[in-house]
């Protein structure tokens, strides 16, 4: 899909995507000519239609996780995976006790994947320790509904 600024007759640029956690998503586009901004607001059904393709409008913000679509969309059993969350050597962020406690409440089917996503988010931003505050920020920035 393309968004056209009719006034400037230019294609608008994708600028931002938000998934606030209520099953909807919003994507913002801006005109490079006049700076006019618009937002595409999708209802839960439309959001699901796009999500079913395993794609994100505007492109991915983080590397795709193994079986990410399955783990995000299937109601699976807690012990289906053995996943340490991508424990990596040197420079990989640590987890505070409070953040670990919060992570423990995530269903086992997706917990390891969620841990990887938070870890990569923090690593890319040079954050040394993952705290509940970092998790909150990541949820907003990455649209991690239910994570």
């Amino acid at each position, binding site marked *: *899909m*393309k*968004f*056209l600024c*009719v006034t400037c007759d230019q*294609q*608008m*640029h*994708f600028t931002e995507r938000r998934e606030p956690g209520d*099953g909807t998503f919003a*994507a913002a*586009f801006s005109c490079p000519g006049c700076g006019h901004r618009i937002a595409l607001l999708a209802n*839960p*059904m439309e959001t*699901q*239609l*796009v*999500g*079913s*393709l*395993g*794609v*994100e*409008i*505007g*492109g*991915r913000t983080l590397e*795709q996780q*193994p*079986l*990410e*679509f*399955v783990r*995000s*969309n*299937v*109601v*699976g*059993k807690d*012990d*289906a*995976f*053995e*996943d340490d969350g*991508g424990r*990596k050597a040197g420079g990989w962020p640590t987890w505070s006790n409070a953040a670990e406690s919060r992570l423990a409440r995530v269903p086992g*089917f997706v917990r*390891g*994947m969620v841990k990887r996503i938070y870890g990569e988010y923090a690593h890319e931003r040079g954050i040394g320790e993952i705290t509940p505050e970092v998790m909150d920020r990541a949820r907003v920035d990455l649209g991690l509904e239910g994570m």
Partner: protein
Amino acid sequence: MSFRTYFEVAGADRSRLEHELLAQRDRVATRLNTVERVVAVMSGKGGVGKSHVCAALAGGAARLVQQGVGVVDADLRSPTVSRMLDARGPLIVTDDGVSPAVAIERIRVVSMDLLIEDRQPLSWREPDGDSYLWRGAQEAGALREFLGDVAWGSLDVLLIDLPPGADGAMDLAALYPNIAGAVAVTIPSEESGRSVARTIRASLAGGVTLLGVVENMSGCTCAACGSHGPLFAGSAGDELAEEFGVPLLGKIPFRTAKTASRFTGPEEKALVERFLEVLA
């Protein structure tokens, strides 16, 4: 105001949806670079023992090939082949992907049966209602990840146990065009033959090569007296092979003995030998 079409507006698509969909296919192709042959096992009709034949092919081939055999259980709603092969979870996640479960004969397996609760239906996280709109896309997404996100390693053959229906092999070929072909499974009955013929035609139209036909439940041996007789009237296996000009890879009798689960009967062995000959 005069509107312009999508193609008249210059510049790349800023939504990047097409880019992402192409990247998904590339991911599958890259992952399967180490697999020599991808083969679909299909049937238009449910209940013909397609998964049993798939397991027999996998079990037999795994004893004869060098690198190994993998099985993707693409029957997401009614997965059975992983149990037949005695595959167990949990699946180990690494930075390279998800390691498949290792079954009998070191067959590498991935199946929805390993991921969802026992005796529970496949259930998706989704808004209430209208699920028919996106269910197909979700199932295609799951199959795509089973192919592209599992660390299959080097394999001689990766068998895809498709669900009943006419479109499975065609959809698989759209996702992974390098598929070596498909094996069609039928039972002897005329009804099954008609149904499987439809599936074969749909697959051929989708560019999938038909490698051969297997007739399952082709007669039954009495456990008490040992006499052998027909279980169903008809000869759909021979007829389909002739109609489509492909080999009848084998006729597998219905067995009641528990040992049948290990797929070691003489008919299964002959089936596997012919299957590997066709693949060579």
